[in-house]
């Protein structure tokens, strides 16, 4: 349904940010595990993986920020509280919940990237 030129929200837009977190997490873990396998040479340098994780982190953070912005842009102009049975309320609720989840996911991606900042080899 089209209304006020705003973008409709669904369960998929709600879980987009944490899904990005999940992909970032999995990619970082697999990349590092692959680079260090079979865990025999513990002083092997993992510079390439760290750069990869750095890039993945920036991309993920930008994507999550976009989802946050998309929700916030619509939500800030709302006057409804989100707790009544109208289409407006449903949208407002989904937007606000999306903002919260995006914030959590943003923080999650940042924290999950920190090991790559400090750890330089396969020890």
């Amino acid at each position: 349904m089209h209304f006020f030129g705003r973008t409709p929200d669904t369960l998929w837009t709600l879980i987009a940010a944490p899904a990005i977190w999940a992909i970032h997490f999995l990619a970082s873990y697999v990349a590092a595990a692959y680079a260090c396998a079979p865990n025999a040479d513990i002083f092997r340098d993992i510079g390439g993986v760290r750069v990869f994780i750095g890039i993945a982190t920036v991309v993920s953070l930008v994507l999550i920020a976009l989802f946050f912005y998309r929700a916030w842009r619509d939500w800030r102009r709302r006057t409804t509280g989100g707790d009544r049975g109208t289409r407006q309320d449903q949208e407002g609720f989904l937007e606000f919940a999306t903002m919260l989840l995006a914030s959590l996911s943003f923080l999650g991606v940042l924290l999950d990237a920190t090991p790559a900042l400090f750890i330089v080899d396969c020890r």
Partner: protein
Amino acid sequence: MMNREEGATGLDQNDPEVRRGQEERLRKAWAAPAGWRYLSSVNNTEVGLWYVGTAMIFMLFAGVLALGMRVQLAVPENDFLSADLYSQFFTMHGTVMMFLFAIPIFESLSLILLPQLLGSRELPFPRVTAFAFWCFFVGGVFVCGSIFFGAGPKGGWFMYPPLTTQERFTPGYGPDIWLLGLSFIEIAALVAAVELIVGTLKCRAPGMRLNLMPLYAWYVLVVAGMILFAFPPLIAGDILFELERLFGWPFFDPSRGGDPILWQHLFWIFGHPEVYVIFLPAIALLAMVVPTFARRPIVGYSWVVLAAVGTGFISFGLWVHHMYTTGLPAISLGFFTAASEVVAIPTGVQIFVFLATCLAGRVIYSVPMLFAAGALAIFVIGGLTGVMVAMAPFDWQAHDSYFVVAHLHYVLIGGMLFPVVAGIHYYWPMIFGKTLSARAGWYAFWPMFIGFNIAFFPMHFSGLMGMPRRVWTYPEEMGVALPNLISTIGAFIFAAGFLIFVLDAVRPRKNQPYEKRNPWNAGTLEWLAEMPGEAWGVRSVPIIETRYPLWQQPNFIKDVSAGRFYLPDAEEGRRETIITSVLAAEPECVVRVPGPSHVPLVAAVLSGLVFIFATFHWWLLTGATAIAAGAVIIFWLWRGTAEIPEKPTKDVGLGLTLPLYRSGPASVGWWAMFITMFGDLTAFLSFLFGYYYFFTLHADFPPPGTEGPGVFWPSVAAGLFVATWLAVELSKRTNRSGRVTAARLLMAMAAVGALAAAGALLWGPHATGLDPVAHVYPATVWVIVIWVALHAAIGCVMLLYCLARSLAGRMTPDHDKDISNVTLYWHFTGLQALLAVATVSLFPLAV
């Protein structure tokens, strides 16, 4: 607003005669079978109760085992239990509490509560619910019973290989009973999860948009989704494990290229989300209890949804924190430490939401509130020690010590058992029409709360002093005798408190009068329940406009009870409920849910026997029962599903007419297939994970000189799979367009194609002589192709079933649920086939 004076047939709902007639018809349609046919009941009100009751009995059993362990550990070098029996005790205690209590109690409570919470008459698949219960019952009795024959599993609740895979370490059937019994129960749990997801998404009362859903339903949605992604890896792991035990396929045997750590990965990919699968529903109960007794709507509804969804996701990024001591690189540990700290945020949010709700409202004392407060106090301590053990350096010190035992019991008893007791106290009148005794609740709470802390707090210290988990005794010189004795005393105080609760629950209450309706003055829909209750769920299916309709919608109870909303009647004597859309809950159709039947019971017993016979290697009986179980299930589907209604539409009242038959995404069956296949795909991806795991970590995967299954036969199989897949899709379309003969021909061709595809896929590794016992590489290839071939064979049976339905006139161009759902099945099977072929034939051998 609509005129609520008129009922479905334009009758005057104010006329008591009209209402009496409607109520009689509804009562007759929803009546539970009496006498010896009682066990054929499938209604959520009966099955849910059996489910809860059985889970509680298993819980008491596991509790007695725990007391046995505490007696053994009370003094140093005790001989109350032998080492062997002690191992069985702790294995069964953990296993039963996790698999036979914690998960089933959530699913069973949800089965009872969900239809009421959503303003629905019933969940969409009552017979499936009954099937899940009977599977759980059969599997649970089998697993628990083993200990009475001294044959119980004794490898700990996570069954690490090689201790449990090799006969020389663990002789006997113990691990097989664990693996097969629990796989069976896991399947039952998955089945119930599918039911709960479809119920939450499609059975909400009209108008109950996502933002109005009771918080409990949000949690059910998240948790059932987690079960869907968490259980299949364990089932996949169980399959690998059992193939190693039964046939010597060396998945976890390092001497033939296997890797025991793979089991730990698969187990904990299940095992950590599992902790939240247990914890979140308990928090959900608190989210219903706290607003009622704070006398106001919850503060921060969206924040709770954030917490539920956020925890659901992040809980899948924690599994390695159970494996910090397996020698993974520090950077891997770092990722999981970070995620383990992040998950504390949404967890904390929920606790602050409850505190804020209490502060903003006017809290009144009640037993559920008492248990809720106790739960929060205990859980916070467990959460804090969780943040400690989430850090790898601390965990290396505390790993496998009693510190971890203390931590997990603080989390599970605070985060699960206390909220469940609060929930049972709270919902008792909704189910039985009478309250539990407030005095007994008080007398149960304090020994439980104090006893729990006396029992488990000292374990932090005995753990730090060096007491390892899972030892049957300890020497005096270790200096842990005193904390152990204190723990034992505390455990008995705790058990005494719980016993008071149980005695209060089971005592006869003939003379106690029924409560008035909505005895706690709650605001949510489940308190529409009449006292004593009626089996029909809601008298009429209401229109929802607020989060707390009983508080916020005027005249609500009166209008619902007078039948002034949808479906106030059962004109055709059928059990009916309304299906609505996922986001906005707009009415889509009326679904007729099936009534009592013995078929689910028979199907579950037969399926259970398949697993039991396999445990003891009675292969002929296993095969025969498997065929019988399959036949019963097909009979069940044939008689009870996709029924063509006698008229296309039905007037449901308030001027609304809805179709009685919809196929595709508007039907609940399509959703159930979609969700089931997602779980199925997860299991398949777990096998692929195993394949790539071996490839990444082991230089001899595949062993030098192996040519694998080749490229030719797998390519033929891929071609046949694609052709079959296309034929299935085409048959659906031609059938829908009315060319029935062409559709039937395509179904028959696709059925043959499916078998040919399976044959070609299996022929590859056979023709190249891959021996699954020799090395883990051929074993993994075989497991992947067999999995897909099995799917093709089942897909073939489905196509033949559709063909027979079409020939029998039970499937027509306008009524095509069967082929529509089978097509969906084939989308997933086709995808798996292509992934399987790409993996085993191309990667890593051909690229």
